[in-house]
Structures are given as structure tokens and as C-alpha cells.
């Protein structure tokens, strides 16, 4: 379970262009459930997502993962928490250009020092699972948007994290690809993963698999249901 207590995030603090992206958020994200953060652009949902995923530190407030406070951890330990706990699917997928799909999938596992062959086999199995067996050797620039997203999901899962975080996963996908993503999210939920998604796409927010819908506006949570 991930708990946020009084979390704020202020960019450019003390400067003329200071922006408070998140203001005093309290939130609990329960294990094994699909939580969706929704809200208009600039509402602070992506910033909150980065704080939950330990990609950024809150300016004030606390973040706890299974009771352990992580928001004050030094960088090295925070990386360890991030690596152990989260898999990220970024809005623009953030695949490394020039590398193949397979190379991108194995990236999060490289510093763990796993044996080469089992690692490649697992990456290949994930790509197979997402229907990308024949695309494994392709440089990622040559993949379609939907394929790139599935590579990003495979990459997020390579270390078998407990929480999958997806930022605006359907922003650039057509209807068929959105359905494909929802199927994958359903599959993740069934396998016991916690899924946290930001989206203002009704095809996501109104999907049956969503367990909790959190609405943000102007850096604050204005509604959380249930």
C-alpha cells in the first residue's frame, strides 16, 4: 500500500516563476487495484504520479510504501525502491532510440547482474506475450505507436514490479489500441499487480476495470471514488 500525507510539490521555489503543481495531497493507493488519476491538463496528476513512483521528491509531505517512509531516502536507496517496486509506462513511452525492442525491454534489468540467457528469454517471452515476437530485433523508431507502447509495458514488467504506473497511456492511441491497452491492464490486475494510471480519457476513466477514480484540479484532490 502506498500512502501520501500532505504532499506538495513546488517547482522553481523562491523564484519569480514558482509553480505549486501539487498542494497538500493525502492519498492511499491500495495493493492489487487499478487506480486512475484524472483531471484536466495542468491539474498536477503527472507530478503526483512521479512522486508516487519516486521519480521526484515532494517539497513537503511524506510518501510511505508498505509503511516505510521513502520520501526522505537518499538517492541510492530511492533508486533501489523504485527498481524493486515500480514499472513505468511513460506517456511518450521513453524508449531509447537506436536500440532494438528487445534491448529496450532488458534495460531495467541490466544493473541487477542477472545471467544473460535467462534475461533474454524473459524479455523475449514478454514480447511474445504482447504479440511482438517478430518485432524484437527492430529498432524502436520503426515500431508503430501501439507496438512502442507494448514494448514500454514489457520493459516495465521485466523486473516483475508490484506496481505498474502508466502516464496518459492512451493519449496517442486509436480505439483498437486503447482496447488492447485495457486488456493488458485487466491482465495486470488479474495477476495481482497494483496499477496506477493518469488519464483524462473517458475510455479509461469509464472502463469497468477501474477500482478507484481520483479527480484532481489545480494540484488538489477534489474527488476520490470510492
Amino acid at each position, binding site marked *: 500500500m502506498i500512502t501520501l500525507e500532505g504532499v506538495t510539490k513546488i517547482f522553481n521555489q523562491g523564484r519569480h516563476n514558482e509553480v505549486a503543481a501539487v498542494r497538500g495531497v493525502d492519498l492511499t493507493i491500495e495493493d492489487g487495484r487499478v487506480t486512475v488519476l484524472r483531471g484536466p491538463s495542468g491539474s498536477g496528476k503527472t507530478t503526483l504520479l512521479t512522486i508516487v513512483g519516486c521519480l*521526484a521528491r515532494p517539497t513537503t509531505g511524506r510518501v510511505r510504501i508498505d509503511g516505510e517512509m521513502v520520501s526522505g531516502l537518499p538517492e541510492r536507496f530511492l533508486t533501489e525502491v523504485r527498481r524493486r517496486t515500480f514499472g513505468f509506462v511513460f506517456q511518450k513511452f521513453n524508449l531509447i532510440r537506436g536500440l532494438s525492442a528487445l*534491448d529496450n525491454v532488458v534495460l531495467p534489468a541490466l544493473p541487477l547482474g542477472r545471467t*544473460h540467457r535467462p534475461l533474454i528469454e524473459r524479455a523475449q517471452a514478454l514480447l511474445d506475450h504482447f504479440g511482438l515476437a517478430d518485432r524484437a530485433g527492430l529498432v524502436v523508431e520503426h515500431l508503430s505507436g501501439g507496438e512502442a507502447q507494448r514494448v514500454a509495458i514489457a520493459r516495465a514488467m521485466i523486473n516483475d514490479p508490484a506496481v505498474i504506473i502508466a502516464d496518459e497511456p492512451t493519449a496517442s492511441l486509436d480505439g483498437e489500441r486503447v482496447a488492447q491497452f485495457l486488456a493488458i491492464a485487466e491482465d495486470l490486475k488479474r495477476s495481482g499487480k497494483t496499477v496506477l494510471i493518469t488519464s483524462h480519457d473517458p475510455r479509461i476513466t469509464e472502463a469497468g476495470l477501474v477500482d478507484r477514480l481520483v479527480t484532481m484540479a489545480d494540484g488538489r484532490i477534489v474527488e476520490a471514488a470510492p
Partner: protein
Amino acid sequence: MRAALERRRHLLDFAVRSLARRPAKNLGLTAIYALIVFVVGSVMLYGAAIRREATAILASGPEIAAQAMTMGRHEMSRDADVAALKGLRGVRRIEPRLWGYLWDSAGAANYTLMVPPASDGAHAVAKGEAIVGEGVARARKLAPGKMLFLVSPAGKFLKTRVKAVLSSESALVSSDLVLVEESDFRAFFDLPPGVWTDVAITVTNPREVGTVAEKAALKLPGHRFVTRSDMARTAEALFSWREGLTLALVAGAILAFALLAFDKASGLSAEEKREIGILKAIGWETRDVIAAKLFEGGLISGLAFLVGVVAAWIHVFFFSAGLFEPVLKGWATLYPRFPLAPTLDALELATLGMLTVLPYMAAILVPVWRTASADPDAVMR
């Protein structure tokens, strides 16, 4: 242990793949880098080789050379001078020497004609015989048994049969040497008996060289006494100065490369920063990112260093440093051309590495460390 090795292997693999993504840029950088190593390496290897040769010359030369001087110019010494030096305390041997230079227009080379000292039995020559250096043999296409004809500036002929060719172990010592018998030498240069080019003094205790030179100067105030350390200092000053001058001349190129390296490394592009942010976001630690980037830099600098050093070595020892020879030798240009004895010194390599590889690696490390130690979100934004 196994995991640590696998981690390194994975990071190295990643570095190779990463470099392969921009082949033209990285090959271009490696080529320029190798060129800089080649230039600096050539100057350093050449300077070091010359110094080694100079050391060899001095080791084979006298501990003190006494030369008669008139109005600051070198004059011939007389038998009386030699006699005056005999009996000095601390002197083991006094040997008057005969040597001189000859410009050989046929071979377009300057030779040193010398009478081998009596104490050097290995190089003794009989009348009508000569032992020649490797450079002379090359210039005049000589071999043992062949005839060597020389003409003095006064038009006198010297006809000798080549007894042997000196080995090229230390070419600078012997390349331009022609060893002849004393009467041949005197006849060729029209020298009367009882005069000598200079006098070689060997002392009993090498630590007493300075004292012996001082005592000898009191006996022969019209002579100068040049010690081996004086000559070593002169050679060092001459070649170090030239080496420094050459490095200063190429400093512009080195500086340009340093700027290029710094720009390449420090000016991490938005794309490179974003990639570091992605790697951090997906679970790489700062040290993983730094290790991968150092592997990349190490591969480029290692390859460039290897290519540059090998090219410099071939350039210096097989092509006589043709590109820098005029600058490095200057007026001291030696004829005939002499090949330097090929050697490679670990200290020279380490110095070259410190001058070329370390700055590049440092220029990579600092900006990567700064980027990688920030929060991934801040880097990716």
C-alpha cells in the same frame, strides 16, 4: 561476485550498442582523438628516443674532454698538453683523440672521421682499412670488403677497404662514423704529428670528475674541460626545448580537441540528458549510468589511444618522425639519416595517457555525474 561481473558485462554491452547508434559521430571523434594522440605521442616518443641516444653517446664518451681554446674557439691540442695532464692525481687514463667532420657531396652526408682509441681493441683498424657506421654504409652502399673513397676539402683522396659495418643498436652514436687508422687520418686532413683534436680523460673515481677537471684546468688554463654531465645537460636542454616548442606548436590542435571533447562530454544534448533520465527512471543507479558512460568513453579513448600510439611508434621508428623531424632536430640535423632504436617506455605511455585519456574521461565524468545524480523527473522534463 558473479552478479557484479554480469552487471559489468551488461553495462559494457550497453555501451557498445549505444556507441553503435551513432557510428559516424563516434568514428569521427575517435579519428580526431587518435590524430591528437599520434601528434603528441610522436613528439614524446621522438624526444625520448633522442634522449636515450644521447645518454648512450655520453655513456660511451669520455668522462672529461679537454679541448684547447683560442679566442673562444676550439683549437688543436699538442703533445705538450697531453704530457701536462699525465700524472694528475685521480686520473686513470689520458687518451689524445683524433676526430673531425667531412662533408661528403657524393653521399650528400656529413661524416665523422675518427681514429679509434688505442684502448678500443674491438674497433682497431690497420692502414688502408675503415670501419663505417650503418648510415655511411647505407649512403655509400658499402659492405665489408668494398672500397670507400673519400675526398677532403683540400682535394686529398683517402682510399680504404671496409673492414666492418657498425651495428645499428644505437644509430645516433655510430651512424655517421668512419673509423680510420691514425696515419691515414693525418694524411687525409694534412695534420702534422703531435697535434690532436682533443684529449679524453678517464678518472679513477667517477665522483671525482669535477675535482679532476678543476685540477686539470689549473694545469692547462687555455683549455676547456667538458664533463659528461655538462654534455648531458646541454643535450637535455636542446632536445627538451625543441620537444616543448613542438608541443607548443601543436597546442592549438590539442586545445581544439580539448574543446571538442569538453563540448561533446559536458554539453550533454537534450537527447542524452533525456536518456540518462530514462535510465534513472527505470531503475539504474547513478553509478550504473556513470559506469556505462565511462565504458563508452573508455572504448573511444582506448581505441583512439591504441591507434594513435601505434601510428606514432611506426612514424617515429620506421619513418624517422618525418612530419616533425625538421622541427625537433633543427640546426642539429644529422647526416646521414639515422634510424632510432625502437623502444617503448611504460612511463612515456603513462604520461601520454595522462595527457590525452584522463582529460577526456574527466570531461565525460563530471557532466554525466551531475545529470545522473539529479531526480529522474527533473532530468526528463
